Each structure stands twice: as C-alpha cells, then as structure tokens.
C-alpha cells in the first residue's frame, strides 16, 4: 500500500462515514430526476496543459412517500343526539411525487367517554373551501374519488359523526381520520419497486406513509356564540379612527342549543374613549343609562361598563343584538 492510499483510508474512516441525518426540505427534488456528476481533471504533462473528464456517475431520485395530516379545529362543541357533526382536517402530500391517498374513519377510539357514530357518508371534501360543512361539499367514495395530490399539494376534508342521545354535558368523544398512501405504507425505507412516478421506485419516508389523527367532540348542553364588531365614523364623513370620531360597537349573541340561564353581557368602555350618553340599544330598542327596570345600563361603579341582561335564552329567541357608541378622546 502506498503512503497515499494508507493516508486516504485512515482519514476516511474518520471523515467519510458519519451518522446519517435526514434534514427536511420544503420542496423535495422531484421523483425521476437524474443527477449526473462528471469530474474534470487538468494537469501539465511535460509543460503541455491537458484536461480529461471522468466517467459520469449518475443517480436517480426515487419517490419518497410521505403524508402529514392536521386538524383545523381540535375540538368541536356538540349537543347530545345531534347528527352529521363535522371535524375539519387538512391532508398534505409531503413526499416528492404524485400520490393517491385512501381515507377512512374510526370512531371506536379508547380514552374518551363515549363513541360517536360515523354518519352514513362519513367523509366529505371541503369542496368550496369554506371551512364549513355545507351542501356544496362532495362526498368521498373510497376507490372512486380518492384524492390525488401532487408533491406539496393539500386537500381539506370533513369527517362526520352523529352524537349519541345518551351522551351528557361535559363528556368527550374521539373520532379518527386515517390517511394512507395508495402505493403502500409501512416502516420507513420500505421499497415498492417501480411504483413511483414514471416507474421509479417508491420508498416509504419517515411518516410511514400513513397517519391516524383523532379529533374530539365535547358535549355541551348549551351552545352560545357571541361576536363583536365595530364601525368608525369620523367628523369629516370618512371612517378614520381620529380624535372626535365615533365608534359604533355591535355585539351579537345567539344560542343554538339548550337554555343559557340568566345570560348577562358585560363590555367595558375602551380606554381613551368616552361613552355616548343614551346610545345603548337592544335589538334596536333604546335602553336608558340609569340602573332601573329595563334590561341594561352603564355601570359606573368601577371602570365604565355596559351591562345588558338577556335573561334565559334559547334558540327560539333568535339573534340578540346589542349596540352602543363611544367617541375617541
């Protein structure tokens, strides 16, 4: 062995064989790409410059199958006995080739208080990308419209469950979406020969090419929503929030299930603003600022706060709208 070779071999033990690491790149090199390398060597032979090229070493990028699944809303409030309650998921093809994914639902999950019942058609695409389950969304039918996703592409789907009538307030029920690559899944490194894009091999990546992710239903006897919005009117006919401008606040309360007993809305007047006297309205009817027999007042015992008593609210009461105005100091 020449000194050159010995030195090379020994140094190589230390430098060339290192632990394999697998950094994640946002965009993987597309499956089927051929990467070629040709070395060039130049030298002088007896004073004559010469350049030679080596053979070309080539390596083919094969398909790595990976998938990631996330929940848009980890928990959904529901009432006992309700039907077709949706959980929204996003599925992302994190591999480097085009892949078909198969979907299924499992609601017999341990670790919860009750088992939801998958609806007769339990998976829909969020076809209109609204984030809400509605009439325009297309049902998923296994084997006929399995989502086909290009590398880095995503699709949003709902899973639907019915909530048993026997479930009680505060109970939790879990339901899982299972997403599996159609080419195959298994331990990372599992090879599906010739089944990648363009006939290259497909190799299972770190995600095992299948993901199971549970969402949660929480039973609540009362479902109440509250939303606040604002509109600014400046003294010059525009909508700039300048000193002297008026802000009209609108608070909308709605009960969609159960009875919200003794509902009271409290809203503090914002700092650097002054309440406009006698501007308090409930469902467009005026309420006096004084503490008296009507449903609302301006409570000045501490920081000025709007108080409106809505009483016992049910879905039959419909939307309750509270309005008041402030002026920017």
């Amino acid at each position, binding site marked *: 062995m*020449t000194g050159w070779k010995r030195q090379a*071999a020994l140094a190589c033990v230390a430098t060339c064989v290192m632990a394999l690491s697998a950094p994640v790149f946002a965009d993987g090199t597309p499956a089927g790409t051929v990467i070629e*390398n040709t070395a060039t060597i130049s030298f002088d032979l007896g004073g004559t410059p010469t350049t030679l090229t080596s*053979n070309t070493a080539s390596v083919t990028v094969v398909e790595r199958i990976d998938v990631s699944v996330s929940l848009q809303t980890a928990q959904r409030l529901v009432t006992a006995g309700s039907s077709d309650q949706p959980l929204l998921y996003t599925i992302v093809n994190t591999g480097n080739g085009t892949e078909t994914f198969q979907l299924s639902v499992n609601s017999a999950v341990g670790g919860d208080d009750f088992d939801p019942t998958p609806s007769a058609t339990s998976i829909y695409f969020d076809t209109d990308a609204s984030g809400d389950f509605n009439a325009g969304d297309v049902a998923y039918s296994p084997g006929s419209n399995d989502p086909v996703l290009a590398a880095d592409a995503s699709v949003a789907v709902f899973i639907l469950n019915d909530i048993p009538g026997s479930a009680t307030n505060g109970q939790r029920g879990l339901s899982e979406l299972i997403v599996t690559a159609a080419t195959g899944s298994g331990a990372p490194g599992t090879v599906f020969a010739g089944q990648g894009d363009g006939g290259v091999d497909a190799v299972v990546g770190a995600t095992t090419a299948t993901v199971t992710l549970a969402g949660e239903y929480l039973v609540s006897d009362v479902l109440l929503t509250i939303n606040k919005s604002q509109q600014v009117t400046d003294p010059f006919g525009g909508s700039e929030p300048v000193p002297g401008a008026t802000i009209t606040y609108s608070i909308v309360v709605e009960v969609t299930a159960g009875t919200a007993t003794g509902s009271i809305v409290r809203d503090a007047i914002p700092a650097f603003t002054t309440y406009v006297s006698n501007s308090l309205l409930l469902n467009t009817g005026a309420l006096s600022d004084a503490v008296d027999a009507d449903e609302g007042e301006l409570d000045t015992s501490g920081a000025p706060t709007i108080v409106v008593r809505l009483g016992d609210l049910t879905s039959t009461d419909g939307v309750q709208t509270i309005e008041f105005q402030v002026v920017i100091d």
Partner: protein
Amino acid sequence: MKSEKTLWILLAVLTFGSANAQQEGTLDVQTTVEKVQVSTNAAGEEVTELVPAETVVPGERVIYTTSFRNTGSDPADNVVITNPISENLLYVEGSAFGPGLELEFSVDGGQTFAAAESLTVIEGDAERSATPDDYTHIRWSMPGSLDTGAQGIVRFSAILK
C-alpha cells in the same frame, strides 16, 4: 469491531474499477457515487458499508469519490480535480476529503474559485458570506507533481434536497 470492518470496506472502495477512461501516457480518472448503508448481519451486529448509489430519496446523503492515477511515463504537474455540485444537492459542510490538496469552492458555476471562508454572494443589493447551498463546484489542487504510477482520491458528501 466496527472500525475494522469500515476500514476493509473503504479499502475495497479504493480499488479502481475498469480503466475505461485510461489513455496512453496520461491519467486515469474515475468517479463513483455511493451511499452509506447500515444493516444487521447474521450475528446481529450492525454493519456500516458504502454501497453504490443507484437511487436516492430527498434527505438522503450521497458520497462522490473521484480517483485518479498517473498511467503515463512522465510526472504530471498542476493537477486540479473539479466536481460539479448539482443544484439538487446540498454540500455537507466539512465533508470534503483530499489529503495534501488545496480545497476551493465556486459559487458562480465554476468560473472562479476561492477558499470557503472568503467566498461571498450578492443577494439583492447586499453581499453576504457564501453557504454550502451556494456552492456550484468543488475543486482540489495538488501541490508538486503526481509521479508515474502514483494515485489519489478526493471525496465529498452531499444531501439530496
């Protein structure tokens, strides 16, 4: 012992393949691409070896080796070996191997070369230090001469983006 096994494998790697690029009175130069394969043998021991890389997946590391030998009858002077680094590959910092050779990189498609620490790139209006992601070529220069029958190897690792 793992290190002994590794040494044997690497010695095997150092043996040259067919001399199809050999030219009379010149140099023989060969390039291979390999990857590290870890497996378990019949005795349940972990075996690390370099195997030819025919395929690769994003995130995987490949090792390029260029071997050269003076097959002529005269010594060669000013020997310079240049390898491209594909845009799909990320050079692994510190992986370049070439004992006794001067190491330089290019960030402009092989037009100019400099030591890694003195390379810069223009990004927008600002100049910044080059990172491995900027490298387009790697180059080794041999001081002195390569005698008749003498040989050497250079090597670097890269990760598929």
